[in-house]
């Protein structure tokens, strides 16, 4: 059973994480949002490791969120229509309900990811955890990079459809 002392972690790591994130050349308030989001994730995540791994967990999550931010900004730059661009960055908006994942939602996501067939799941994890390119993933798994790419598309599609189906079932029950 995992029970982290979030208050203590927050006091111990908040500033360090903020410095860590700011070193990635993010403005202060974006860095602050990312650190806040990191702790919100601690509260909401169903699969926390043991607390002795808390430090690496916090840094890894914050780092992922920074990478996610830069990816979003990069993709945003491809879209010319400013109204569209706003829609795309809407996830950066301050409304915590929009950003924050609920515990139930994260649990469903975890379940959907766990249910992926092994060959799709491996690709997803290498891309997510290792941030690896399809060329690297292909080499590691001994498959062509195009296959790695196709598996990634498939994995994302399945997980999204599973989440949607789950959502429908839940509203049917209600």
């Amino acid at each position, binding site marked *: 059973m*995992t*029970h982290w002392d*979030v*208050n203590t972690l*927050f006091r111990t790591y908040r*500033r360090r994480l903020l410095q860590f994130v700011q070193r990635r*050349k993010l*403005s202060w*308030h974006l860095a602050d949002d990312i650190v*806040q989001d*990191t*702790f919100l*994730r*601690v*509260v*909401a*995540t*169903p*699969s*926390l*490791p043991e607390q002795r791994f808390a430090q690496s967990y916090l840094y890894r*999550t914050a780092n992922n*969120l920074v990478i996610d931010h830069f*990816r979003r*900004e*990069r*993709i945003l730059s491809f*879209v010319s*229509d*400013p109204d*569209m661009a706003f829609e*795309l*960055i809407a*996830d950066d908006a301050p*409304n915590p309900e929009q950003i*924050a*994942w609920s515990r139930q*939602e*994260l649990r469903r*996501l*975890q379940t959907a990811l*766990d249910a992926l067939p092994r060959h799709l*799941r491996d690709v997803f994890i290498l891309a*997510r*955890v290792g941030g690896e*390119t*399809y*060329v690297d993933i292909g080499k590691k798994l001994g498959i062509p*990079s*195009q296959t790695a*790419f196709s598996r*990634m*598309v*498939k994995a*994302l599609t399945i*997980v*999204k*459809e599973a*989440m*949607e189906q789950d959502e429908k079932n839940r509203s049917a029950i209600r």
Partner: protein
Amino acid sequence: MTRFPNPDSGFQTPTEQAAYWFALLLDGSETEEDRRAFASWIEKDPRNMTAFNEVERLWSGSSSLHLAANNKVGRRAFLGGTVVAGILATGWGVQRYHPTADFRTATGERRELTLPGGMRALLASGTTMSLVSGQGLAGVELHEGEVWFDHSKGNRDFFVAASGARSWSRGGSFDVARYDDQTTVTVEQGSVAVKLADQARLVSGGQAVTYHDGKMGAVHDVNIANALAWRDGRLVFVGDKLGDVARILERWQSGKIIVIGDHVASRKVTMSVDLDRTRDVLPTLAGALSLKIDQFTDYLTVIRAA
């Protein structure tokens, strides 16, 4: 590298197409042509936009999950974990949430009040403060925000606690601002002794000191009229970075101001803002600095290079 399969061949639903585009852009090996195709795909149909945002959100959601190799048994063990109390779930962190504070102001509000003992205090927007006592004397603890105190010499000694330090006054007027656990004490008249663990600074009229994370900065001169202009309903910026200006404006209005790009955030700004009309400020700035500013309802303003 060899091109990835074209999305039109086989990926039918918006979900599949969104997954295709997300996977492609994630890798970063896309071509200029791909980028244009992506832009036209996402602008073509609102359902595409929605699907893409949802895939993006799934990916982002997975960033905090435990995704090590396939050992479902080990992971199940975690799934039963107790719900960690929702301390952080609704607010933006413990330090900004003080349900038991004695005094609080709403965003955009300024309020003057008289503390026990007859001292006057003027609270800035979004301030929370409680009455405390220590060493037999009365004081306040500032949790978040900014307060100007008028402590006439006839009153008893008084202290303001913030971020682990105490500022002692024997009479005078001074201002304490605490944001994100960085505290600045600005003295208008008289003097204030700021004590942080074994460090102490005496700050006199026209001076300020900032401490942060257990470290005390040097006492320096400040322009009191500018620094404390908020009392008269103004904010004054002189050569301040746009990113800092946005952060300060955020304290006075609901909603978020996002500055995209470090070069934009570091642009220098000099201006005087009427606190009752903060929303007019950014459009004016946009013209002056040739920036693009989009305001979306009251909740979000995005500033970026034009």
